[in-house]
Structures are given as C-alpha cells and as structure tokens.
C-alpha cells in the first residue's frame, strides 16, 4: 500500500507537468482504440459491408442491370407479363449466390432456361453482388455449412436423417428431378437439372429460393432440418455403390430397354449368326460362288 502510495505520489508530482495533458490524451486514445477493436468487430464489418455493397453495385451495374434494371427493379417488355429480367428486390443473398455461383447468371443468351456453366465471377465478386442484392430488401441469406451438414449428428441421428430425407425427396423432388436425381424434362424445352455432383450449399439455396421454374420450399414448407435431410440423402446416394452394376444413367426403364435391345438382342443375334456360320459340313465355297 505504501509502495502504491509512493508511486502514485511520484506520478502525482508530475501531474501538473507540461507533458501531462498530452500523455493522458494519448493514453485515452489508445484505450478507446483498443477497446473499440476488441469489442466491436460487427461494427467493423459493417463498414466494409458498405464497401462490399458499393463494390457489388458497381458489378451489378455492369453485368446485371441490362436485364434486371439499374436498381434491381426488373425490366418489363411491351408484352404484358413478360420480362427481360425479373425484379431482384427481396430475393436475398442466397438467390444471387445460387444463380451466379453456379454460372446460371449472367445468362449467355435468352432461352427457356439458364443452364449451369462455368461461373463468370469469382467468389469475392459473387459475395459483393449478393451483398448488394441483399441490401435492396430483406431476403434469405446464404446458408452456412452447419445448416446443411449432418456432421454434428450422432451415427443414429444421421441414419434417421438420411432415411427421412429420402422420403421427403421422393415426395417433393423426384417428380421433376427423377428418383436418382438424374433430372427430367419440363415443358417447352425446360428441364430439371441433374443433382449429381451439385454442392450441398447450392441444393440448399435452390430449395430456399426456387430458381427458375422450381417451386420455393420456404422454411415453413420444408424446415431447415428437412432440407438438411434431403441433402444428406442425396449425399448418401452418391456415397453408396451402384449395387446392381452399371447404372445406365439412372433414367429408369427407357435406358433399360435400350440396353436390352442393343446389348441383349444385338449380342444374341450376333451369336446366332456365328452359330449358323459354323456348320459341321462347310458350304462356304459354294456360297461364295453366288454373285
């Protein structure tokens, strides 16, 4: 205590010194600055968020606004009900991440459907675009890996999740995407794309935002857990081997019929020709004589 008093006294002696004010000011600044950095990271991101949104808006004006309008409000054509591009107000970051991340947007050319292709923008640019569109109005956010991963579950829970996901998949998805996730036809040249090799994040976002002709499976319709289970089921299909051998594209009886005729009947007729050509007594020379 005495020591403390002594050192306090010593500092106190300088309290009216010429540099005291400056030192206190510096100390105060360091303290506030340090506390600020330590305790308000959210605040820190929000400043760079604004930058991100600004950057996204730049990209948007160059790459997207031609169809979606300069403020993402969409552009209508002269024909009623037809649009050059729909409004993006309220579609949320998830929709942008899905459409741009899978390369569907920007569209290479107008058509029945935007196909999946190599993405045009890199990850940061996609994040910027997503941030900009999300800033237009509230909408679904980009899901985090915990939303669609079953890694955190116990073995038993995982199995349950997979079989539950299978039933949800067969009820809601197979009508268009086929029992195997191989995809199917939609009217007028449209199609439900294959789900093989599609990243879990994009499957989750597709369910959440309902891109193109796909219906939206909102969280009230399929809960986040149910979406996660569907993704787990699809993952399990890709992990399990093809028990029956070569899967023939997983397209159902049409490709089976094709193989029955080409491999089966084709092969067997070939064998019939072979057997008939090999006789006990060869008549080949005579046959060769026929013109």
């Amino acid at each position, binding site marked *: 205590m005495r020591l403390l008093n002594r050192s306090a006294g010593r500092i106190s002696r300088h309290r009216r010194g010429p540099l005291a004010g400056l030192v206190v000011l510096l100390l105060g600044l360091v303290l506030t600055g340090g506390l600020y950095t330590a305790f308000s990271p959210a605040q820190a991101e929000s400043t760079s968020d604004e930058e991100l949104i600004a950057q996204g808006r730049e990209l948007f004006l160059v790459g997207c606004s031609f169809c979606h309008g300069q403020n993402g409000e969409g552009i209508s054509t002269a024909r009623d009900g037809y649009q050059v591009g729909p409004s993006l107000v309220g579609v949320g970051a998830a929709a942008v991440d899905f459409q741009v991340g899978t390369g569907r947007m920007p569209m290479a050319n107008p058509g*029945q459907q935007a196909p999946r292709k190599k993405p045009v923008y890199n990850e940061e640019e996609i994040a910027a675009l997503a941030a900009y569109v999300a800033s237009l109005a509230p909408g679904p956010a980009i899901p985090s890996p915990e939303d669609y991963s079953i890694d955190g579950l116990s073995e038993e829970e995982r*199995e349950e999740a*997979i*079989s539950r996901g*299978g*039933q949800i998949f*067969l*009820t809601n998805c*197979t*009508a*268009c*995407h*086929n*029992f*195997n996730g*191989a*995809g*199917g*036809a*939609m*009217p*007028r*040249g449209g*199609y439900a794309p294959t789900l093989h090799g599609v990243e879990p994040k994009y499957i989750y976002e597709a369910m959440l935002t309902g891109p193109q002709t796909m219906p939206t499976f909102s969280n009230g319709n399929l809960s986040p857990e149910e979406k996660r289970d569907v993704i787990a089921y699809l993952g*399990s299909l890709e992990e*399990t081997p093809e*028990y*029956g*051998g*070569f*899967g*023939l594209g*997983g*397209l*159902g*009886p*049409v*490709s*089976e*019929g094709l*193989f*029955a*005729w080409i*491999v*089966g*009947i084709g092969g*067997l*007729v070939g*064998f*019939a020709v072979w*057997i*008939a*050509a090999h*006789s006990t*007594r060869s008549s080949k020379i*005579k046959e*060769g*004589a*026929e*013109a």
Partner: protein
Amino acid sequence: MSLDTSKVASTNGTTAATASKPSKIGGVATWADDRLGLAGAMRKNLRKVFPDHWSFMLGEIALWSFVVLLLTGVFLTLWFNPSMGEIHYEGSYDQLRGITMSEAMASTLNISFDVRGGLLMRQMHHWAAMLFIASMMVHLLRVAFTGAYRKPRELNWVIGCLLLLLGTLEGFTGYSLPDDLLSGTGVRAADGFLKATPVVGSYMSFFLFGGEFPGDSIIPRLYIVHVLLIPGLLLGLIAAHMLLLVYHKHTQWPGPGRTNDNVVGFPMLPVYAAKAGGFFFIVFGVTAIMGGLLTINPVWKFGPYDPTKVTAGSQPDWYMGWPDGLLRIMPGWESVIFGYTISWNVMIPILIVPPLMLVILMLLPFIEGWITGDKRDHHLLQRPRNAPTRTAVMVSLMTFYGLAWAAGGNDLIAIKLDLSINQITYFMRVMIFLGPLIAFIVTRRWCISLQRHDNEKLLHGYETGVIMRSPDGGYSERHLPISDTAAYTLTARDRDEIYTVDGDTDSNGVTAPGSRVQALRAKLSAKMYEHNVQKPTAAEIEEAHHHAEHEHALEAGLDHPADGHQFDGHSDHTVEEAPLRGGH
C-alpha cells in the same frame, strides 16, 4: 465330300453275322424301350432335319430366355412374399431402414440385399423378360418378312401373336409385383385404363382391386397370375407352337436341291442338339452377364409405393412403351354423354388401338391369303423384295410402332437431345399418320427396284468393275453371267398371279352371288402386285445370253482376276488359273 467308309463291310463274308452281346447302355435302353416304346418315335425325330440359317434361330432366343425366366423365377418365389401387409423395413439397405412398406417390397429388398445371389437372380429375371419379348418380336418380323406365315402356318402365326400378348401381360404383372414406386405408378395407370372403359370401367376396377385402389389384394392377385396362370398358358402355347413347327417342318430358303417337298439341312442329333444346346448356354450367359453388370429396376432407389409420390422417368418396360407413347401424344379429348364422361384420351391409345393392332397382326396371313386366293402349301421362303406389298405393310406397321414407342420416351428424348417436349408431341401427332404412309411407299418402291436389279443380274450378268473403252471412245462396264447356282436361287420364285373374277355375270346377265366381294378381291390383288417385277422367262434369258455371246470376243481373258489390263494388251504378268468368281 468324301465318303465315310467305316460303316461299309470290308469283305463279302461267307459266315453270317452274329449279334454281339449288347452293351450295358444298350441293355438299359432296351429295358426302357420295352416299357415306354419310345424307340420308334425317337428314331424318327432324332434324325429330324432342320435347315441352317441364322434367322431361323431368333425364335430360339425367346425359347431359351423363357427357360432362364423359369429358372430364375423359381429362385425368386422362394423368398418373395406377395403380401400388402404393412411392416417396417429393418434390412440391410440403410436409406430405407425404418420406413413403412408392404411385405412385397420388403421381401424384394431382402432378395436384393440379404439373400445370397438374390440381386443377380432378380436382375437376370428382369433382363431375361426384356429379351424374351424382344426376341419374340424379331422372330415375328423374320417370319412375316419371309412369308413364312402363309399356308399351312397361319395358325402357328396366331399362336405366336398370342404368345406375344401373354408375354407382355406376364411382363406387366411381374413389373408390378415388387410394389415399389414405379410398380405402383404402373398399377395406378392400369387402374385408370380400366376405369376409362365406358359403363363397366369402375366395376372392373373395383373387381380387380377388391375395392378402391390400391386396396390390399392386388399384389397377391397379380402374383398368382404371374407365377401360375400366365406361365401355364405360355408353356401350353409354346408346346403347341413347337409341335406345329415339327409337324409342318421348318421352312427353308430356295436353292439348288431345295424344293417345296423336302427339307435340306442337318439332323437334330448330333448337329442341332449341339447347336441349340450351345445356344441355350449362350443366352443364359448373356443374361447372366447383363444381370451381373447392368442395373435394372433399382427398387431400393424408388422406395415403396405411395400414391402421393411419383418420379420423373416413370415409364413402363419397353414392350409397353408404345401404348404409353400413344397415350402421351393423344390430345385430351373427352365428351360428356348423358352426364357420363367418355375419356377418348385414354380409350383410343390404350383400349382401342393396341387391341386393334394385335387383331390386324393376327389377321395378316388370312388377309393376304384371301387377296391372293393362294391355297397352296408354302415351305420355301420368299425374299422380302419379292413380296413388295407385304414387306411394305410390315415396315409401315413397324414405323407406326417405332414412332409410338419413341413417343413413350419423349421426356428423355427431350432432355438428352435438347428438344422441347411439346414440339416432340406435335411432331409425333402428325408423323404417327404420315410416317407409316411414307414408309409404305418408300419400302414398296425399294423392293421393286431390288427386283429389277435381280433381273438385271439374271439377264446381263453381274458388274465386274472393269471399265472398257471402245475404239470410238465410249466407256462401258463389262458384265459377266452369274453362276448357275445363283441364277437358280434368283429364279426359284413363283410368278405373281393376279386374282381375276371369271365371269361375274352368267349368260342371262344375272350377277353371280358375292360378286362385289370378288370384284374387290380382284382389285386388291391387282393393286397388291401392281408394278411388281416378274422373273424373266427362259426364252428371255436365252435371248440375253445369245446377245452376250456376240461380245464374248471382247471378254477373252476374263477367266482370271481382273487387274484392269485384260483388254488393252498391256497385261504384263502371267495369268493365274484362279477363277474370277467361284463358278467362273
């Protein structure tokens, strides 16, 4: 051909031959023959002669795949439980564990994952079913295109058509048994077809399902149809089909030594027993390889049937694909008569056209026989080109079938070829009428052109490929006469005889009874043979050969392989004595 002299006595012996002690096998055979009396029948039938041609073995594929079906089918019945009782699946397949399903579905999964060799047997059974019906159809085409269905084989043709119908029904019932999503969708469609029948539809549906769809009796009922009723009928009809084949004797291609009254070929024992037996193992082997390597109907991915679920790519097996295709391209026509809906959109493609096609198919030999008025027995086959109208009718029917069949896979055609499913439908709606017509005209003219080509070969010989330049600068190709064997084979066909009505009115001007029908018959007969090219007469061939002789001087040296210098004096290598073509 060298003579087999081992069976010929080497000397004229002076002592009488004595019977040696019978061998043990001979003793058993004698014992059996004394009691069964089979030796007589066996002696005749084991030496029965069959002609040799690859196309005569197509029906055999059907027979052997049926045997594979019986063998694998018996295996499957040992574990399959045809019950619609609900249970929770607790087997080896993770993704469905704990799911409620029928016992039929659970036992199918059990066969696939927990019975040793079960999945192989299931897949072999399914592949063999596909091959069974496919081989029946290629066999049918062979018979039709060669005119083998003419008298006396019309009834065997009808039996064959019934086999095709029964095979299709057998396939459909088998497809429905596992009670997976695809099966159930198929049964649901069948229920819709029944209900589309006017007046009695809903009664038939309730009768079949034992109440409202799906009920709990359809699987046991289809099971007994699948394992007992239809296989029994199939076995009986296959037996009848083959007994008639033996009774009629097999048809053969015309050629030297082959007439309408003999069969040239090899005996059952040892040649055909070996060939046919070997072919069985090949069919079994191909089915086993397909069953082992190619997935067919992965029921575990479809999951149990549930009326609330459906999957893209819900198609029937291929043989039901063409009615499905007709259904897919049919406009949605319905009419309401006295408050009752008549569903033309289902009736026409399912309940009217397929049975009609089957009747047309069965009647083909009778219609043809009536038009031609041909009452002779035919054991020699016709080349398709020598019956242009028949060939064209078959190709036309095939085109109809093929287009309807393709329409059944319209969704997969759309996604795999980047087409619009709507435009495929519009295209098919037109082509289903236009396609068969175009096919008929093209095929008929094609056949007639081939007939002309045959006559060219008979009269002017074959094209040697040697181009000649005459002294005044014109170019021509040398022709050489074809061999006698080839000429015989080409001319071994009848001239077409157009059916004519002899005097439809008597001397008093009274029309003979039924003369209008006869006139129609004569008209059809004339139309059928119109433009057909008849084989040249002997005099015409003689004349053509005489004409050719005058050019023979130019053809000197053409009895060895042509090298292009036969006629220009620049032939600078020794002439080998090899004939240019077999006979010359």
